[in-house]
């Protein structure tokens, strides 16, 4: 890696403001994503990371504008590819704290292939999905988490596709940390994100984050009536029980569904393959010998 020159970092207890960028979010008034943003600020404050050690990676969509609102390094990539990009960032420098953010279209439609491999690969990043069950930035089309019959601009007679179940999909794909949050409960959400950050592997937090502009069904009012905390007697090490909870439509449980630390993160496994502080010249000379 090239030589770096750094300005000194503040030596004091961080505040939420340290993680706020100067840019004002471009979201509609009443957007659920504000709650998620506040939860992220709070979780970063709790962890107290230096802003230069954080990378926020996203795809494309309303919620994917997120990196611009965090005072940190950021990578606003292309639609659906946040997981691969974050994988590259984390492998290149495992000391970085990598937060991946985006919407349901980004995660489950165009990025669906990466989602399952991201879960099984288990790179140590925290993935917060702002799931509003609609396409917002393109102004109201059906999404992979939209319910059957949901009327949108692209489904004038109602959505025909079965919705995808993010938590169950993550669980069967090999995810090691699976949780659901709700943007109207930012304190609980911040706690979940902190746990996700502390989890030594891919932490998936699917967050209901209502779109007040294009989704008139899955509103804050709708969620208020169906959201419940994960039952106290649920054992988060029990994957089958977690899948069962994830399959329920009502209530919609929020909290930690599943966590295991049995499987080492991908980046740790890759690091163990590496020779540290090798002399490149010696290695190259040895490789040249193979062909001599």
């Amino acid at each position, binding site marked *: 890696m090239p030589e770096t020159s750094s*300005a000194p970092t503040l030596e004091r207890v961080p505040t939420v403001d340290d993680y706020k960028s100067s840019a004002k979010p471009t979201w509609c008034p009443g957007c659920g994503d504000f709650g998620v943003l506040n939860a992220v600020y709070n979780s970063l404050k709790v962890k107290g990371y230096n802003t230069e050690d954080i990378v926020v990676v996203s795809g494309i969509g309303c919620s994917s504008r997120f990196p*611009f609102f965090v005072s940190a*390094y950021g990578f606003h990539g292309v639609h659906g590819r946040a997981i691969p990009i974050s994988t590259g960032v984390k492998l290149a420098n495992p000391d970085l704290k990598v937060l991946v953010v985006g919407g349901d279209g980004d995660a489950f439609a165009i990025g669906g292939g990466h989602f399952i491999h991201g879960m099984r690969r288990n790179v140590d990043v925290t993935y917060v999905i702002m799931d509003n069950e609609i396409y917002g930035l393109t102004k109201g089309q059906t999404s992979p988490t939209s319910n059957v019959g949901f009327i949108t601009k692209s489904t004038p007679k109602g959505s025909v596709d079965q919705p995808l179940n993010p938590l169950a999909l993550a669980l069967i794909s090999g995810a090691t940390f699976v949780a659901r949050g709700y943007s109207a409960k930012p304190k609980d959400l911040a706690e979940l994100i902190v746990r996700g950050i502390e989890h030594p592997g891919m932490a998936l937090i699917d967050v209901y984050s209502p779109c007040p502009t294009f989704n008139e069904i899955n509103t804050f009012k709708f969620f208020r009536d169906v959201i419940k905390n994960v039952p106290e007697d649920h054992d988060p090490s029990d994957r089958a029980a977690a899948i069962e909870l994830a399959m329920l439509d009502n209530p919609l449980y929020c909290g930690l569904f599943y966590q295991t630390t049995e499987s080492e993160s991908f980046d740790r496994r890759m690091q163990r393959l590496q020779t540290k502080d090798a002399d490149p010249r010696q290695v190259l000379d040895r490789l040249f010998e193979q062909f001599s």
Partner: protein
Amino acid sequence: MEKRDLVIRFGGETGGGLQSVGQLVTKAAAAVGFRVLTFYSPPAEIKGGQAVFEVRLSSNALYARGGAVDILWTFDEEGYDAGIRDLRPGGLLIYDPADMEAPRSGNYRVVAVPVTEIAKTRLRFERGRNVVAFGMAAALFGLPKEPLADLLKRQFKRHAELLPQNIAALEAGIDWIEEHIPDRRQYALEPPPPIPGVMVLNGNQALSLGALAAGCRFLAGYPITPASDIMEFMAANLPQLGGNVVQAEDEIASMGMVLGASYAGKKAMTSTSGPGFSLMIEMLGLSAMAELPCVIVDAQRAGPSTGMPTRHEQGDLNLAVYGGHGEVPKLVFAPTSVLDCFHTAIDSFNFAEKYQIPVILLQDTVLAVRTESVERPSLDDVQPVDRVLVDVLSAHTNGSVNGHADALDHGHAPADETTQEGAARFARYASTPSGVSPTSIPGMAGAEYVATGLEHNEQGALRYDPATHARMTEKRHRKLAAAAAEAPEPLRFGDEDAEVGVITWGSSAGAVIEAIQLIHEQGGKAEMLAPKMLWPVPDHQLGEFIRRKKRVLVAEVNYSQQYANILRARYGTQLESVTSYGGVPFRVQQLIDAIAGKVAVHA
């Protein structure tokens, strides 16, 4: 005329061992001192289907697959059918009676070699067939026994218990030839003094070594012919250098991982072939827009679509040059030989890092699988280039951190940046004469920024106004002119005074050189120019060459005259084109005829 080279072709069904025999002969000949160059054409299938492995050896430098075959060694009837028309009159046809019926006689000498019988009955070592055959081939060329045995010793280093029976197999093969073909003068060449520190390797291996020498520390890829062995080689070796190789779920993910690793400060690459490169094109634009360096190796194969996975074509130039929606500044390089794969890989990384731009290295099937004996490149000559990082401390103190001064130079005063989405704490995309802006990498305090594919101004703030888009488009494209001015030296061959010039690229340069050599021998003249940088067009190389020629041909292995048309757009329609598009490289005679003006060339 004195015979200068020998071509032996092993032909038959894949899986029958012809490649291992061919590789052994190649290594042995190189160890003795011969210049060696192979041509390998496997079928796309794992079992069944015809493969060809050709070894050409000479006392002189070799540039391409040879012409007529001197010795055809067929492993089955199909190998005979496919290869017999390429055997030169008076050549030698070799077969094992255990494999096939006696072939028809013709204007060639037929020798039945009892490889199977020797291995199975006499040595009771059926798996030793390949080594018996190797001994026979080596004896035909008059290769001394000592280096052959050394080669086997190295081959069986980890299984020393297998060595004695393999040595016996080798000796049985040699003895049989010495007894049955006592006069072998016509197949034997006098080897030249060996190349000091000779290496025997193929193009993909040379390319991988170059990438490592250049400082590549991250590769993400997806298996695809004929690029997979780059990923495999790197997977075996990059971790030793503290790097990572990831086999991703697809080529889109590969490209995403590469850009993520690049953003975090690593020199990063992917290796693929046409179908995979097609999938990467969207993020090629992201690389150019966010100005994140990366190297994409496209080992071209015959397309379109799945095409012919193991066949040769230089058909991806248009995709490399024009690929991507919108205007995507990028650099395209192509190596001309196995050794040049090493150097071009280094150039690719150096230019990518220096100019913070995507670089496409157009490998091709011929070079990917061709083995050559080459002089070991000196690592002392490798000078890796790193991207320029912003000096945060001085940038903060001297007031240029937000790039206002630069922006004003270009007639633009940014508005209140503090409220703009994405405004970095330094001018990440500061305007400079070369278009290159000092950057930062995560971990550097005070230099945080958001990489984005959205249009942005010098500070990285999102902007969609006409002035910003025009100004930043110009900035990104300025890098092309700066890079073109520093283009690596092209490969030149032939007579500077020649009226006829041939411009070519990639592995086709080898065939052009051999054509010009023959033309010179017959009293004619021609000169070749093979630029290493195909895009942008380095005018100081191409323009100068074209202007001093009466006739210029552009030789490439594709149907649509891709490079010729790129050059015609700049230098005019008088440029002639000579193409080949059957999935095989140029035959030297086709080029000789084209240079002589005997075949129709169309603009």
